[in-house]
C-alpha cells in the first residue's frame, strides 16, 4: 500500500502542503482534485521523491520512499508534459525505462504506440502536445510499476485520443496495481475513479470513495411553493448550486435535513444524479487562496 502521511511542503515562502495524508490501496484509481495552485503537482512530486517533504513521510509497503529510493521501481510519475525526454526517440525512452524498471512491458509499449499511430523512431520533441501525453502515459504504464502517478494525463489530448487514453489506463489496471490521477477533467474521473481526494489549503480533509460520496451527498431540486421559506437551506450542510425563482438546485450532506424537507408538504423535491463537478464546485468554491 502507498501511504502518504501528514506531508508538509513549503515552496518560495508559501506553505503548499500542510499535513496532507491519504492512502492508495491496490486495485484502486484515485483522483486527486483541487483548484489550480492548491498543490496537486507538488503532492505528486513529493510522493515520488522529486521534492523532499519538510514534514511527514511517504511509505510504500511500509518502506520510506525518500530514504530507500530503490522501492521506486514500483512507483512511477508521469508529468503533465515529457519535456525531460524531448531529446530522445520514442524507442530510446522505452529502452532506457526497460533498463531502469525490471518489469517493463516492451510488447505493451510497442503495440500501444502502433495503436496511436506513433513510430518508435520518432523524436519526442516532434510530437504534438496531445501525442506527447499519449506517449508518456503509455511509457509510464508499460513500466508495470504497482503505483503510477499521472499528472493531468488528458491535458491537450483530443476527444478521440482521450477515450483511447482512458481505455489504456483502465486496461492497465490490475488487482495489484493502482493509479493516482491529478486532473481537472471531473467528468472523466466520474467514470473511472474509485476514490476521490480533495486537496484544499494544503490538506486532504475530504476523501471519499465514489460510492460513499453518492450515498452521503444528495443533489436535489427543491421548489418552494407559497408559504414555504427557503431559509431552511442556510446551513453548512447545504450548498445552493442554482436558484431560479422558487426553484433551488442544491447539494445536501445531511440525512436529517433531507427527511425534514421530504416531510414538508409545501415543498416539491426531486433527486438528481450527483456529479463530481457539483461536489467539487461546492467543496472548492470557497477556496479563496487557490489560483
Amino acid at each position: 500500500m502507498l501511504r502518504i502521511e501528514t506531508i508538509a511542503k513549503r515552496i518560495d515562502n508559501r506553505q503548499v502542503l500542510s499535513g496532507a495524508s491519504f492512502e492508495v490501496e491496490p486495485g484502486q484509481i484515485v483522483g486527486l482534485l483541487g483548484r489550480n495552485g492548491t498543490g496537486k503537482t507538488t503532492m505528486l512530486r513529493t510522493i515520488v521523491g522529486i521534492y523532499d517533504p519538510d514534514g511527514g513521510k511517504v511509505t510504500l509497503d511500509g518502506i520510506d520512499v525518500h530514504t530507500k529510493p530503490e522501492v521506486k521501481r514500483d512507483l512511477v510519475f508521469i508529468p503533465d508534459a515529457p519535456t525531460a525526454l524531448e531529446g530522445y526517440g520514442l524507442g530510446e525512452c522505452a529502452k532506457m525505462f526497460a533498463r531502469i524498471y525490471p518489469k517493463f512491458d516492451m510488447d505493451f509499449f510497442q503495440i500501444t504506440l502502433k495503436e496511436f499511430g506513433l513510430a518508435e523512431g520518432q523524436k519526442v520533441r516532434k510530437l504534438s502536445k496531445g501525442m506527447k501525453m499519449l506517449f508518456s502515459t503509455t511509457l509510464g504504464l508499460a513500466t508495470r510499476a504497482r503505483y503510477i502517478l499521472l499528472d493531468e494525463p488528458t491535458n491537450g489530448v483530443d476527444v478521440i485520443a482521450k477515450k483511447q487514453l482512458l481505455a489504456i489506463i483502465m486496461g492497465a489496471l490490475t488487482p495489484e496495481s493502482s493509479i493516482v490521477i491529478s486532473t481537472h477533467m471531473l467528468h472523466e474521473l466520474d467514470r473511472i475513479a474509485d476514490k476521490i481526494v480533495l486537496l484544499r489549503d494544503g490538506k486532504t480533509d475530504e476523501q471519499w470513495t465514489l460510492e460513499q460520496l453518492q450515498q452521503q451527498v444528495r443533489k436535489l431540486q427543491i421548489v418552494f411553493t407559497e408559504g414555504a421559506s427557503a431559509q431552511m437551506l442556510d446551513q453548512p450542510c447545504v450548498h445552493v448550486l442554482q436558484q431560479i425563482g422558487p426553484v433551488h438546485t442544491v447539494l445536501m450532506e445531511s440525512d436529517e435535513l433531507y427527511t425534514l424537507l421530504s416531510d414538508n408538504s409545501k415543498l416539491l423535491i426531486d433527486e438528481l444524479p450527483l456529479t463530481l463537478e457539483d461536489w467539487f464546485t461546492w467543496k472548492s468554491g470557497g477556496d479563496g487562496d487557490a489560483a
Partner: protein
Amino acid sequence: MLRNLFDRGLWWKEFRQARLMLLAMLVVGFFALPYTHIRYYSIMQSGEIYGELMHIIRELKETPAGFWMVTDLLSSFLSTMIVMSLILAIYQLGLERHAHRQELSFSLPYSRSQMYITKLLIGVTFIVISILINVLLDIVMLYALDFSFMMMWEDYVTYIGKLLLVVLSAYSIGMFVGTISGSLVAHIAFTFVVIYYPEFIRWSFRTVSHLYEISILQNYNHYPLTTYFFDMQYGSYPSLFILLVTIGLGIVHYRFNHAEHNGKWVVVPIWEKILIIGFAISSGLFFGFYVYHQHYSGKIGYGIGFGVGLLIGYVMIKLLNRLRVRF
C-alpha cells in the same frame, strides 16, 4: 554497493545525456595535442618558420633534446582539457536543471548520492578516455615523425599522470559548483567566478594591504587556490586533496539539492547567504579600487568607494536573487 554504482539503467541514462561531450573532448583534444605535432612537423619540413612557432622551432633546431617543447605543448593540452572538463561538468549538471531533466532523474529509483557518483564516474571515464587516446595518438605521432629520439619518456609519463590529476580535480570543482548552482546560466557564471575570483581577490588584497598595512592580507600570493586555474604549478598532493574534497562536498550538496529551487541562482540556502555577502563585499572592493584610482586616492577615498560599492552590491544581488532564470 558496487552493484548500485554500476546500475546499467542509470549509466545508460547518464551516458546518453553526456555522450556528445565525449566526442567533443576527443576532437578538441586531438587538435590541442597530436595535430599540433603534425603541424610542427610540416612546418619544419617546409623550412618556413613563422609566427608563434618561430622561437620554438629555432630553439628546437639548436637544442635537439627538446622535451621542453613537448611540455610546452602539453601545457596547452592541459588548459584545453581543463576547459573541456568544466564544460562537461556544466553539460552534466547545469543543463540537467533545464527542461525538468533533473526532476526526471530525482523521480527514478536511485539515491541522489548514487546519481552524483555515477555522473562523476561517467565524467572521469570521458576525461581519461579522451586524454589517453590523444596521448597515445601523440606518442604514435612522435614515433612516426622521428621525434622519439629526443623524448624523455619517463618525464613525459609523469607529466601525463599529473595532467590527468589536475584535469580531474578541475572537473570535480566544476561538478561541485554545479551542485549549488540553480540553473545553466548560474553554473556557467559561477564557474567563471571560481576561475577568476582568486585573481580578483589577490588584486584587491594587494591594494588593501598596501593602503591599510594589514599584514595578514600581504600574503595574498600564498592563499590556497589563488592561482589554481592559471599557473597549474601545484604538485600532485594539492590536486588530489582538491579532488577528494570537492567529490565529498559535491555528494553532500547534491544529496540535499532542492529541485523546487531550480531557476534560482543558488539552490543551497547556506550558499545563498555566502553569495549575498560575497557579492556585496566584492562590489565594495571593486568600487573602493575604482574611486581610489580614478577620483580620490588615499584611505578615505578607498573607504568611501568601498562603502558605496557595498551598498550597491547588496541591493543588486538582492534584486538579482529574486529573478528566476529559465536557462
